[in-house]
């Protein structure tokens, strides 16, 4: 389904953040990417839908080569990739429904977007999904009136509204309390199963990752150094993934974190 080959990403003139990375996501339902801060997890996810422009390499999603798409085709391709963000990235001053429907912005007419006359089918689907994740009663609330967990659900529903072929989530639970965070994780897992949708999650909480994932990928400074079932992730592997600093890997100035 998703096939990444020899992916390199370098910001400006710095050392590459992704170093010749290869990854193939076939049938798995939920895959977690772990790795310390600065390992390049976010960069990897953002390369997939080209929020970040890869320096070289190829990314193929269900037969579409993403890295060479023109503006218009890219837009079309992005609709097929749902994305959930750590800080939710909702538009605070819009209602929950508008935020949710903005997942359909790639499909509906400009006029409908301006007047907020969304197609009946979209509204129905939005209510279904919102009901599914338990936020249907907030449809008319402003996004910034919700709690963190609720806001992340809006983020998830927005991504699902795209009817994506793959869902990317960049630390979707990092700003949530453990209970809410567990709820969101199980939600993602359940949705992955129900909708038969591959989900890739960047995550810091290894316990959670192990609990919910079908596959775990460990990154260390631009490279994948672990890729296996959760059960295979033992203390030694963990140490390796979280050991070291970018400096050791990059041979440039030392950073402590």
């Amino acid at each position, binding site marked *: 389904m998703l096939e990444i080959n020899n992916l390199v990403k370098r910001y400006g003139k710095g050392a590459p953040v992704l170093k010749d990375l290869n990854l193939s996501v076939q049938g798995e339902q939920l895959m977690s990417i772990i790795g310390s801060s600065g390992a390049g997890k976010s960069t990897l996810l953002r390369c997939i839908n080209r929020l970040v422009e890869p320096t070289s390499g190829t990314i193929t999603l269900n037969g579409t080569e993403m890295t060479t798409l023109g503006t218009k085709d890219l837009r079309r391709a992005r609709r097929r990739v749902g994305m959930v963000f750590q800080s939710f990235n909702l538009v605070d001053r819009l*209602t929950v*429904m*508008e935020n949710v429907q903005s997942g359909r912005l790639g499909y509906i007419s400009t006029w409908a977007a301006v007047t*907020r006359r*969304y197609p*009946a*089918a979209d*509204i*129905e*689907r*939005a*209510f*279904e999904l919102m*009901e599914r994740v338990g936020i249907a009663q907030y*449809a*008319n609330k402003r996004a910034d009136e919700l709690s963190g967990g609720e806001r992340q659900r809006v983020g998830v529903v927005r991504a699902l509204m795209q009817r994506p072929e793959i869902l990317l989530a960049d630390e979707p639970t990092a700003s949530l309390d453990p209970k809410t965070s567990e709820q969101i994780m199980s939600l993602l897992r359940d949705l992955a199963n129900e909708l038969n949708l591959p989900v890739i999650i960047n995550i810091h909480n290894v316990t959670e990752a192990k609990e919910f994932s079908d596959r775990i990928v460990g990154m260390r400074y631009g490279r994948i150094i672990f890729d296996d079932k959760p059960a295979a992730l033992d203390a030694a592997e963990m140490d390796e993934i979280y050991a070291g600093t970018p400096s050791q890997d990059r041979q440039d100035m030392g950073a402590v974190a």
Partner: protein
Amino acid sequence: MTMPTTWRKPPFIASPVLRWAFYIAVAIYLVGTIGTLPIDWERASEGLTRAGRIFSGAFPPSFARSDLMITGFMESLKIAILATVLGLLLSVPLAFMAARNIAPKPVYFVGRGLFILARSFHPVIVAIIFVKAVGFGPLAGALTLTIYSIGFVAKLLAERIEEIDFGQVEALRSVGAPYLVTMVYAIVPQIMPRLVGLGIYQLDSNLRASAVVGIVGAGGIGSTLANAFGRYDYDFALAITMVIVGAILISEAVSGKIRKNMT
């Protein structure tokens, strides 16, 4: 379970009666004002050629009096610099006074009141007041434009302060920093880009404030331009306008650069 298939954005005004009353009032108002505007398209198409004739005198722009233009520009620049610097110095404390999130209520009202007052006095009146006070000349011009700047900069700055990240203020409060220092450390850095933007905007706005500066006899490029118009020297007027546009484009670029470096 069936899901609703319709959804309407909750309207701005919840009560339907009030809402429709509001819509109807707005509609009546618009029809009553815009609808009754006498636009005569025939007159307009004729007018176009006539306008063309009048303004054809502007081409090519004439730089024959460039000496006058340069002295005028320098004079305006001096006044604009003084007014902007003074205006900003006064606006910053005033903006702090008038920001709802950091000023106590009474201070807030005094602050707001001051710049509302600064904006209500028509610049012509302010100019006359300063002419009476300090006589004709650049000083009166700079003072007038200072007042003019305050009403604008202080207001927009106060609104920016109301939108800051308050966490930084709390952090400073939690270390027991005195009031002034809290402002300098936690707020000033946050509002700096806006302050620079407003400052440079105000500089060019003061540079152009011909009407006001002309009244106080401070000449400058503004009155030279007005005179060029009065004498129908449209070619010279165009030349002056081009110089002003050029100067402001430069200031835009500078402002953009500084602001970009700051964020």
